[in-house]
């Protein structure tokens, strides 16, 4: 038996392993598979529940948020200074955020790797060095270009507008096989076409003998003689998440893969980072903004792949445009109005196209221990990043108008849809940060990798500078923001880290 429900375990729980992996998402699943196949006894502990694909594929969006998203979708980074409040999407389930992504796969851009080498001292990180890791992951999760036939009408229209303005979009690659274009990736693929790690790396880990325990909240890494010796925490109730018994996993190798918010939290609780002061800092989010275009014709953007095209035409200015779609309830929530006015706007839902843009941001966020079990996270948007936002919104709006949209809805709270003339007159440059509607799916950098223990939390192999035996292998070690979706980078880095651990003497 590979999968165990911690919420159903009576009393306390004690386990022994060679390696304990904290978190079963993109980083943890890769590490668990590699190390189990290398002959290690691997125990994976996961705070969330296990929902099999056959079940989560049938849940409605709000049910999926309740069952598989952290805080049921109510996770935020609090804006500091002239910064927006940012809703941050994260998975809390077996498979982690890989079950919730749009499946977009980009390799780490070359200019980012150059920054890592030149400014972070990570000399090995070249495109050539990482290529075999990317190739292996891409094979395993089936990264393919989204065919034109799967593009939604929303994306087709946006591409028409972008092409008219001289910036045609590019096709995306995603980790899918036999995608039917149900536009539901962010809420659990209904057909299992998205090759998330619960369908790829975790079955491999189980086949090699790994055990996974759900509903296990790790509170800290234990320490014996200055070396990591396992983890301890609480078993959780299956619905409310209230703490039940205690659990301990004894293992000479601990791998934290709990994500950009929770790996630093566990590291802090374990005394890591006291010397460098870097744990929890340098959080980047790729702040994202959506602009909707309203057309006379029905768009029905839910027919087709959730994400299929992107534009890097403004990459040099720090912004990337990506196609997306959201369920009608989310669309309705973004439209202004109460009562009959809201009902009128809701009738426009099938006439809306939607496109997103994200900012390639500097690390302005900090993860701190909060009053409860969740961290308190603040985000101060750098002035240069905030200055990009008006341009980002105008670029997307102009493309919608070029495509024939009659009005656009911009991500400024309380703003009614705008015509082209109204948008030109709108003072976007002076919108306060708190009035921007902003979301993120990419928390990175809070246990960043680097060449010195003064400037980073882990070394180039993912080993914590301050606690031998502790490895970190998730988005938190990514040294800077990427400007592109990070799933593939996280998995390739986790694979590289896992190989180094496997090759090391036990």
């Amino acid at each position, binding site marked *: 038996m590979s999968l165990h429900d911690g919420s159903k375990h009576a009393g306390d729980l004690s386990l022994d392993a060679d390696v304990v992996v904290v978190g079963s998402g993109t980083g943890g699943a890769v590490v668990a598979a590699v190390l189990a196949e290398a002959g290690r006894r691997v125990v994976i502990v996961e705070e969330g529940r296990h929902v099999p694909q056959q079940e989560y594929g049938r849940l409605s969006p709000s049910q999926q948020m309740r069952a598989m998203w952290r805080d049921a979708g*109510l996770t935020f980074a609090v804006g500091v200074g002239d910064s927006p409040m940012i809703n941050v999407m994260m998975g809390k389930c077996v498979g982690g955020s890989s079950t919730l992504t749009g499946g977009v796969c980009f390799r780490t851009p070359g200019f980012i790797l150059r920054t890592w080498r030149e400014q972070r001292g990570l000399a090995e990180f070249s495109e050539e060095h990482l290529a075999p890791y990317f190739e292996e992951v891409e094979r395993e999760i089936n990264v393919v270009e989204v065919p034109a036939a799967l593009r939604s009408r929303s994306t087709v229209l946006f591409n028409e507008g972008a092409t008219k303005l001289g910036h045609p979009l590019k096709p995306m690659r995603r980790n899918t096989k036999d995608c039917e274009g149900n536009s539901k990736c962010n809420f659990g693929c209904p057909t299992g076409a998205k090759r998330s790690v619960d369908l790829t790396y975790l079955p491999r880990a189980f086949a090699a003998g790994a055990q996974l325990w759900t509903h296990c909240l790790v509170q800290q890494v234990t320490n014996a003689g200055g070396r990591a010796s396992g983890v301890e925490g609480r078993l959780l109730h299956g619905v409310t998440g209230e703490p039940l018994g205690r659990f301990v996993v004894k293992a000479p190798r601990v791998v934290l893969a709990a994500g950009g918010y929770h790996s630093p939290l566990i590291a802090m609780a374990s005394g890591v980072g006291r010397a460098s002061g870097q744990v929890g800092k340098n959080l980047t989010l790729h702040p994202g903004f959506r602009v909707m275009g309203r057309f006379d014709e029905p768009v029905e953007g839910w027919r087709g792949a959730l994400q299929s095209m992107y534009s890097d035409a403004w990459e040099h200015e720090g912004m990337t445009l990506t196609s997306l779609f959201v*369920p009608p309830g989310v669309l309705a929530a973004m439209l202004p109005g109460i009562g*009959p006015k809201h009902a009128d706007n809701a009738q426009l839902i099938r006439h809306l196209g939607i496109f997103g843009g994200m900012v390639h941001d500097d690390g302005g966020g900090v993860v701190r221990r909060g009053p409860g079990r*969740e961290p308190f996270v603040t985000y101060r948007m750098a002035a240069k990043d905030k200055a990009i936002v008006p341009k980002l919104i105008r670029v997307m709006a102009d493309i919608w108008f070029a495509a024939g949209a009659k009005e656009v809805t911009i991500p400024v709270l309380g703003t009614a849809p705008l015509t082209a003339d109204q948008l030109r007159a709108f003072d976007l440059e002076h919108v306060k940060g708190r009035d921007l509607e902003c979301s993120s799916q990419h928390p990175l950098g809070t246990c960043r990798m680097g060449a010195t223990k003064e400037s980073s939390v882990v070394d180039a192999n993912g080993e914590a500078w301050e606690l031998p035996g502790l490895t970190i292998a998730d988005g938190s070690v990514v040294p800077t923001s990427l400007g592109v979706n990070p799933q593939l980078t996280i998995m390739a880095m986790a694979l590289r880290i896992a190989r180094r651990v496997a090759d090391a003497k036990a």
Partner: protein
Amino acid sequence: MSALRAFAEALFSTPAGPPPPDRIDWVSREMEDYLVRAGSRARWIFRLSLFALMWGAPLFVGALPTLRRLPVARRIEALTKMEESFIAAPVLAVKAFLCVVWYEHPDVQREVGYVGRATFPMALPGTSLPSAAGERAP
């Protein structure tokens, strides 16, 4: 949850009047389930937002709190003004989560022309399913 019901009646009113009571019952149950699963901090944020709009919104139309004491038409007027004000955040927060749930009801989806796949075929433990004329979850 009477505060949530008062808000939902106003938010989802149409020119024909407030939505049917059974639909308000359903969305209230779903929201209760949502909040149970959301965790203590999220519950606290949601309830604080609801409290703020219950007591703050009536002031925008010169009425005394709370919002639920006002007739639906006055609630709509008060919430509209609050949504357009500099303290719109509580209205937007509660509206966002109510909308996510509300638009999953099969009748509502039909009304707005949504024909997406895979809504409401199953229940989470302790979660009710909506029923709609001619369309029941399998």
